[in-house]
Every structure is written in structure tokens, then in C-alpha cells.
């Protein structure tokens, strides 16, 4: 049934043995993910790409320490997280706003957010499944808007034109998408919250 899994599993084995083609597969799969994730915290596309590249290189160098296929993603995100945190703490993130207060505030919030996510292997796999499921379950138009926005990085106006709807409708779909996703993921996010508070 789960061909996806056995397919990746084979690749993972080859990857661990030093097969560069297999590595290319994981590179292609995760490069964009890690870039997009990091961009949310360092706000510079080139920097985010550098970071993703670094993370993947680090993965390649440490391939022998990765124990399971699920460990790949966990490894990469954990690296990205700590790298982002480092950059923020060492003021390596470029100022976004004129007001120093706003920059400061944003960094604090970002640090709090990053610290609250654990990229534990099992959790991450479960979360990935949950997110994929939640996105697939969005109403068709809402989903289309969300995907264009989130994964194709399109502007509202572009989306409105492509889908032949008003700007207002695009905004409404986005609100709806985030609301649904937040509700669906809230139990999970809440759990993380508790874990951190208890630590």
C-alpha cells in the first residue's frame, strides 16, 4: 500500500551509504521547505536559501548519524530553527522597520515562536500528516487561494486575477483558511505549549 514509504526508504538507505543521487532527492524535497520556513524568521530570501543549503550540506556530512527516514526532516528543521535563533540573537537579521522598537518586538516574538516548536521526529511526522490533511480538507476555492498564497507566494491581486474573483473574496478565503487550519492544529499546538511550560 505505502509505496511512497518504501520508495523513500530505499533512497534513504542509499543516501546513508553515500549515494549522491539519493541525496539529490532529499535536497529537492526539502530545499524549498526549509527556505520557506526560515524566511518567516529572517525575512531575506537569499539568506533563507543560504541557510537551507547549509542545513542540507550539514545533513549530508552527518548522514551516518541519521537513524531513520523521519529523522531527515527532523534534523533539517532543528538545524534551521537553531540557526534562525542564532541569527536573531546575534543581530544578524536585517532591520525590517524604521522603528527600532518594532524590530526589537518582532525579534522577541520570533524567538518565542521558534522556541515553542520542537522538531522531534515523531511529532514532526504526525504534524506533517495533520497539516497535509487539513489543507486537503479546505473547501476547494479556499484551498486554491491558500496554496497560491502560501506555496506559490503570489500576491492577493495576482490570485484575484487568476481566479477571476474580487480582492475581497481572496482575503475572505485566506481568513477562512487560516481560521480552519488554526482550529485544526490548535490541539496540537496547545500540547506543545504545555510541554514547554512544564519544562
Amino acid at each position, binding site marked *: 500500500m505505502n509505496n511512497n514509504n518504501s520508495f523513500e526508504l530505499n533512497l534513504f538507505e542509499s543516501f546513508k551509504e553515500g549515494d549522491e543521487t539519493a541525496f539529490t532527492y532529499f535536497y529537492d524535497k526539502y530545499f524549498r521547505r526549509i527556505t520557506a520556513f526560515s524566511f518567516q524568521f529572517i525575512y531575506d530570501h537569499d539568506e533563507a536559501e543560504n541557510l537551507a543549503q547549509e542545513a542540507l550540506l550539514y545533513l549530508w556530512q552527518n548522514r551516518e548519524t541519521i537513524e531513520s527516514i523521519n529523522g531527515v526532516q527532523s534534523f533539517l528543521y532543528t538545524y534551521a530553527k537553531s540557526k534562525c535563533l542564532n541569527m536573531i540573537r546575534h543581530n544578524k537579521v536585517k532591520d525590517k522597520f524604521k522603528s527600532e522598537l518594532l524590530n526589537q518586538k518582532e525579534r522577541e*516574538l520570533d524567538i518565542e515562536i521558534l522556541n515553542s516548536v520542537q522538531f522531534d521526529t515523531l511529532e514532526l511526522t504526525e504534524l506533517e500528516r495533520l497539516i497535509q490533511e487539513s489543507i486537503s480538507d479546505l473547501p*476547494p476555492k479556499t484551498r486554491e487561494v491558500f496554496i497560491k*498564497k502560501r506555496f506559490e507566494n503570489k*500576491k492577493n491581486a495576482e490570485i484575484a486575477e487568476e481566479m477571476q474573483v474580487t480582492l475581497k473574496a481572496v482575503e475572505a478565503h485566506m481568513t477562512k483558511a*487560516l481560521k480552519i487550519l488554526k482550529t485544526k492544529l490548535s490541539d496540537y499546538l496547545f500540547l506543545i505549549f504545555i510541554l514547554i511550560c512544564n519544562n
Partner: protein
Amino acid sequence: MITKIIHKYLSNEASEQEVQTLFDWIDVSDENKKHFISLKKTWALTTLSEDILINSAPVISIQPKKKVYNFLKYAAVFLVLLGLGKLALNFNQKPKTASKEIVLEWSDGRSEMMSKTKKEILVLNQDRLLVAKKFPNQIIYFGKVQDEKVVYNTLKVPYGKRFKLTLSDGTVVNLNSGTTFRYPEQFGVNGKRNVYLIGEAFFEVAKDKEHPFIVNANQVDVEVLGTKFNISAYPENPSVNSTLVEGSIQMYEVANKQNLVLLQPNQMATWQKNSKKITTKEVDPSFYAAWTKGELAFKDTPFSTIAKIIQRTYDVEIINENSDLAKQNFTGTIKISDSSVENILELLKRDTPFNYAIKQNTITITNPSITK
């Protein structure tokens, strides 16, 4: 509106002024801060799903047990509803723009609506030789040309319509709703037989070992020698699926021909647009070809997928606001010509209660009203 600003902020479109407003709002209460943090977290974590799967099983299956429901049990209900023929919606009456017709674009740029074809019409070329015979719901091409003379026609089938054509080599192609298909008016005497597909089609390829038949679908090609198979490559889906009934085909990525699978009969290959990987699994191909017989077939199919199929088949828009329904899977077969959208919704409703409202061609599904 703060929500709007948050969205702008998340997609990096907020002005400094707006960010100021947002951060002030965050400072007002812990509640606000928590709300913002969880939204940004959600947003950042959605990067985990760069490749979203709909048509294939999730990588890890820990699905809760889902009810499976069989429409067939309700065959009798179906007939009763049909008896109340007035209930059936006439979606043809809605005001619509031109694209609701099956359009054939000739190589010289002319285009015509197929529905304007009353009976059999012969199409001749400059040398008075037969190129094609047109019927209202079908077109058959004939003959071969020198390779340099190959020209392409395009057929556009809108939502709510289907169409059948026979290519000049004898290959029969059924086009599903919402499909654009580009093909040579007459194949060349040498070389490969190339056609281009956006949407879904069922192929019965005429055997011709010398001239491999290649379907270009999105960024993958499916190459055949002579065989029956279905390809689904709708642009709104994140994957291209090909299902083999008979013979053998291979599917590969255009940019990376090493990324290839060879399919056996009763297998389906799926190429994911985002991850670029191709996977295969065993399937019942008659299920994937059911639409060519005018049927919709579902097997443990999530409602989100069913909704999309209904949208294409009946040319309606479905907005689902009922999360229970979204999670539900259904099994069953529906004869398209015998059922209206309303019939189908009534059947689904028996399993998972919901309300729906129809306004022109938009159907909004909501949670059921509470009944005593």
C-alpha cells in the same frame, strides 16, 4: 481589521504602520499574543506540506476508522427522486460566457463550437483529401502527412461536457470535463506520435511499434506502444495519475528522464508536482475509467475529491463549510445521465447529515440544522 493585518504581516505585505497597529494589539493581552503566535506558527509550519497529497494516501496512515457507505443500497431512492424530475436542476439555464461550449481550434487559428455541428460533416484539405469527419459529440481524423507538414489542433472541453475523438492513427481518446487536448491533425509518417493533455483522458492507442505514442502531461510524459490507459492531469491537482488497463506504458519526468516507472496492467503511477517523485500502486483500472462509460465511481474517496469531480462533471461550484463531511469517505457508483447534483447530495446526506443551498450554479454546504 486585525485579522486582515495579520494575514498581510504573514505574507510580508504589511506596512510599518500596520505592523505597529498589530504589535500594539498584541501587547493588549496575553490572549492576543497567544492568538498571534499560534497563527504565525501555523503559517511557518505549513512549509511541512510543500507537496500536498490529495489523490494518494498520506505518507503515514494513521487514519481514524471511517465509515464506508454504499450508494447502491439506495438505488430505489434514486428512482423515486428521478420520478420527481422537477427537482433536478437545470444548470444549463444559468447565464454563461462562451467557454461553456466544446471548442475545436484548427491549426490556422480558426475555432468552432462542436455543438454547431448538426450531423456528419466532412473536412477536406487543399488537395480535396479527407482529413476528418465531424459529429456533434465526436470527431474522427484520417490520413498521414509528411513530418514537416504536421499541424496541431486543440480541443477544449468545458466543465459539464465530455467528448470523444479518433486520431488519424486510429487511437481513440475520450476527453473528460474540463480538459484541453492538443494533437496533430494528421500524424507524420515518421517519428513519435506526440499529444498534449491538460485534464483527464482515456486512451486506446492504436498499435504501432515504429511510432511510440507519447502523452505530454504537465511535466511528465507517458510513452506507449499500444495500449489502453487513463491519465488524469488536472492543473488544480498536485499530481498526475496514469492508470493502465492493457499493454504497457512508461511514465517519466520531462526534465529528468531517469525519473521513470514502467507500469504493468492494473497499476497506477502518480507523479507529484512538488516532490517530483513517481510512485506506483495496484488499482482496479475499471474504477478510473468509469467516467468513459458515463459513471462516477468512488471507493473510499474523500468528499473533497468527490466535490471536485462533481464540480467538473456538472459545472457547478461547491463550497463546503461542513468539516464532518470534509473528513468523510464514500464508496459507490453513479450514472451521470441519470442523476442530478441534487440527487447526489441527497444521497450523501443520508450518511452524513448536512444542509445545502443552491444559488445559480454555486452550492454551499453547511452544518445540519439541529432537529428535535
